[in-house]
């Protein structure tokens, strides 16, 4: 039966999660690139939002959430055939329509996260083709495994809001695309810094707020579970922000804004899988661990391996999501303020399941992304010409400039 309070909260959560992408993530990423590419990043975000919405309707939702196969759903709800206005989504107290919309916002933000890896050098047609294929080949199956009654759900994996489904899939795929595309001209020695750190903060702030819909909304009810998820989400974000800020302050003598908000996002991504299972103490541990581990991962990927995952999607989202998924096992213990384990489940056995979930998702998403990149490359090409990259994607690809400030905007 439909519950009004639950439905109201889920309608709100749906809005919050879409707000994370539009414009939260869009601004977060837009501020980090150079001024000549600011529009291209915003364009990637809105285009992916629209494209994934249509694909979700066409069949991606059905593949993720219909049918009971272990690996992938079926197409019985393709084009949302038979959707009834007042149907209750099975196992919940909210309308099917709201559930479909809510899950759609997750499907939107996940390929949008990958944008951070390929900014400033990818062909726009490649963005659309890769993202569209990716929704069917990576997102829908993995969402089915974990949330749609697939084999990982049966095994008892704990991923409350998307440490595996969202952040691990996006993170490893981002790394694959970054390697396939190659480095931006000038990386790592001669790059220009982010063109507008203040926009990065505005976007991160929207993500922080929107994340309450992501995590507390994943309770699918308006009750104690949502309340605790909101509390631990907020605490992890706060602790991670301070931790990253402290690391930079100690190392470079300056607490930077970009670093602090990167810590915020690391904390949020890491608490995501755990948010329905841990208590405030778990959030504290996750907050500290996420910033420290993701900070190290950024250095490793960029400085050591010299992979131009431009906006650190793998190091922040991927590593964060995986860390949180693994930490969920110990931190959900009742003694640590968590919800405890199911019948016959121990901390160790839960941990093993979490490792399997992360590992299989890594392999599947990674291998699938390699193939999708090849397909994309052969059909439309991946990377823009060198002179296009130099001039920037805004003017060359979209025919617009992000900033027309010269001469006081009086023309010229």
């Amino acid at each position, binding site marked *: 039966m439909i519950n009004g309070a639950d439905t109201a909260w889920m309608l709100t959560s749906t809005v919050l999660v879409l707000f994370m992408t539009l414009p939260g993530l869009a601004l977060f990423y837009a501020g980090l690139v150079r001024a000549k590419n600011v529009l291209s990043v915003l364009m990637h975000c809105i285009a992916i939002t629209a494209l994934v919405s249509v694909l979700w309707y066409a069949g991606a939702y059905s593949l993720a959430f219909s049918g009971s196969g272990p690996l992938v759903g079926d197409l019985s709800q393709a084009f949302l055939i038979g959707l009834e206005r007042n149907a209750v989504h099975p196992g919940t107290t909210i309308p099917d329509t709201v559930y479909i919309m809510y899950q759609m916002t997750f499907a939107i933000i996940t390929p949008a996260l990958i944008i951070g890896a390929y900014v400033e050098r990818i062909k726009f047609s490649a963005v659309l083709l890769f993202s569209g294929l990716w929704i069917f080949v990576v997102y829908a199956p993995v969402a089915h495994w974990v949330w749609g009654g697939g084999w990982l759900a049966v095994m008892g994996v704990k991923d409350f809001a998307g440490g595996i489904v969202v952040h691990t899939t996006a993170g490893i795929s981002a790394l694959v695309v970054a390697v396939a595309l190659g480095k931006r001209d000038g990386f790592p020695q001669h790059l220009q810094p982010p063109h507008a750190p203040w926009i990065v903060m505005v976007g991160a702030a929207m993500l922080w707020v929107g994340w309450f819909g992501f995590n507390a909304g994943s309770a699918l009810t308006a009750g104690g579970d949502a309340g605790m998820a909101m509390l631990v989400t907020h605490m992890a974000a706060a602790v991670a922000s301070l931790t990253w800020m402290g690391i930079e302050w100690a190392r470079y003598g300056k607490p930077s804004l970009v*670093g602090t908000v*990167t810590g915020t996002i690391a904390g949020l991504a890491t608490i995501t899988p755990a948010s329905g299972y841990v208590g405030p103490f778990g959030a504290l541990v996750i907050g500290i661990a996420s910033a420290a581990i993701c*900070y190290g991962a950024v250095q490793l990927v960029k400085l050591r391996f010299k992979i131009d995952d431009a906006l650190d999607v793998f190091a922040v989202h991927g590593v964060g999501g995986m860390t949180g998924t693994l930490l969920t096992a110990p931190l959900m213990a009742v003694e640590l303020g968590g919800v405890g384990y199911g019948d016959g489940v121990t901390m160790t056995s839960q941990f093993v399941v979490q490792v399997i979930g992360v590992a299989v998702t890594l392999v599947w998403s990674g291998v699938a992304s390699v193939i999708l990149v090849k397909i994309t490359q052969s059909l439309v090409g991946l990377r823009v010409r060198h002179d296009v990259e130099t001039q920037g994607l805004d003017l060359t690809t979209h025919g617009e400039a992000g900033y027309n400030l010269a001469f006081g905007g009086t023309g010229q």
Partner: protein
Amino acid sequence: MKFIVAIIQPFRMDTVREALNDAGVTGLTVSEVRGYGRQRGHKEVYRGAEYTINYVPKLKLEVAVDDDKAEEISEIIMRTARTGKIGDGKIFVFDLQSVLRIRTGEVGPQAL
């Protein structure tokens, strides 16, 4: 007449302008410019990665003065723009061939 071009630290501009105003300078032009001298650029750190900023933001100050005032004005700019640290900038003085006020058509020193 002389044409004085000074490249200065942006945050010294107010002090320089007040001093020039007190010395009777009736007009000047300022633009935001970027460049480097012996100071070279500087480094900024984002997420642990160092970015080399080759060109440092400066202000370019342009002022035209009568021959007999050129030395005094240059000296005022030097004194007020100076912090004593590297990166204080430079002053260039050129001979100025002619000046023409667009509104009135006045030519020469009275057009300054």
